[in-house]
């Protein structure tokens, strides 16, 4: 799947660039973007180390265990197959970091959740139900206060920069319900 999408993106790009005669700018853009990718990961590495370190403390102190027990009922609907407390806690941390606008931390927790889910899945090449559901919820999990957007609006002279908060939350919820529904549909279909 990813092979065709990614390969297609590059090849279509090259064809278009050649057709429009912008191959020079195209190559330059490509080279710049890979450097950007490296810088992005370097920025992420520090945050990743900090949260992994802190989560390790929370694991050792038993905080994760109690936290996971507390939220178990709510997570049970979404992830009926998930038994590992540490994974549940990490997934939940990713959701909360997202909601509170700690975007990079949310990415870190999400990647770590995926690593744990991969282990539970026996490093299988086929994604588990839990992985798909986690991705679906994560992709539609939104920030309660979209700080950057509010900043953009107030810089542009909006009279009420925060007015978009409630419609954003509502639209995000609608989108989340749709994603969860798709996952539940496929889970049910597979069990039949």
């Amino acid at each position, binding site marked *: 799947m990813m092979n065709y999408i990614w390969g297609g993106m590059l090849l279509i790009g090259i064809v278009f660039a050649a057709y*429009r005669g912008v191959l020079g700018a195209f190559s330059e853009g490509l080279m710049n973007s890979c450097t950007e990718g490296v810088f992005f990961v370097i920025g992420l590495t520090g945050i990743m180390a*900090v949260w992994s370190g802190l989560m*390790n*403390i*929370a694991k050792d102190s038993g905080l994760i265990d109690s936290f996971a027990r507390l939220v178990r009922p709510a997570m049970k609907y979404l992830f009926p197959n998930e038994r590992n407390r540490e994974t549940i806690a990490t997934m939940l941390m990713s959701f909360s970091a997202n909601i509170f606008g700690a975007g990079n931390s949310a990415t870190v927790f999400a990647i770590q959740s995926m690593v744990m889910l991969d282990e539970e899945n026996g490093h299988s090449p086929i994604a588990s139900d839990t*992985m798909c559901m986690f991705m679906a919820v994560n992709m539609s999990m939104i920030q309660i206060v*979209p700080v950057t*957007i509010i900043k953009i609006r107030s810089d542009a002279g909006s009279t009420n920069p925060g007015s978009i908060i409630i419609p*954003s939350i509502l639209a995000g919820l609608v989108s989340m319900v749709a994603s969860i529904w798709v996952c539940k549909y496929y889970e049910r279909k597979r069990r039949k």
Partner: protein
Amino acid sequence: MTNLLGAASLCFIPGMITIIIAHGLWKKVAVYDSFIEGAKTGIKTAAEILPFIIAIFIGIEAMVSSGAMGYLEDLIGPVLEKLGIPRELTSLILLRPVSGSGSLALVERMVTTYGADSFLGNVASVMAGSCETVFYVIAVYFGATAVKKIRHSLLAGLVGYGTGVIASVWLYRIWEWH
């Protein structure tokens, strides 16, 4: 309400750190050693996702800088209009699933061009605030695993995204009207 939510967001990181460290010390955990141990795995994971990030970055750049993205916009614009979505939002709708920073730059431009309190500026803001970077997330998250078959996760993400886009426009219309 907004201030309260803003304060909660502000307190998230310091609050989490306080709880984790205080609880660790209380339970007599060697917090420093434990932190180092965890940080090591964090750095390993970061190194592992680097190739996936570079791959997705160049893939997106190829589409944008070649003008292929612009062609797609012309193609789907009329379809979106039938769903009640203004044509001016097309580029944002296409860019958002692949690039977070790129789509924010676009929102900024739209808000300045059409006016901070205009319908288009506001809908663009709602969209950026409620729709996620689907392709990017899938590439990076699955990049950390051994998964080759991603099953229905892309579909779930795209259905959620499409619903979110339509909901942004219509919810904002209702919101403004009330």
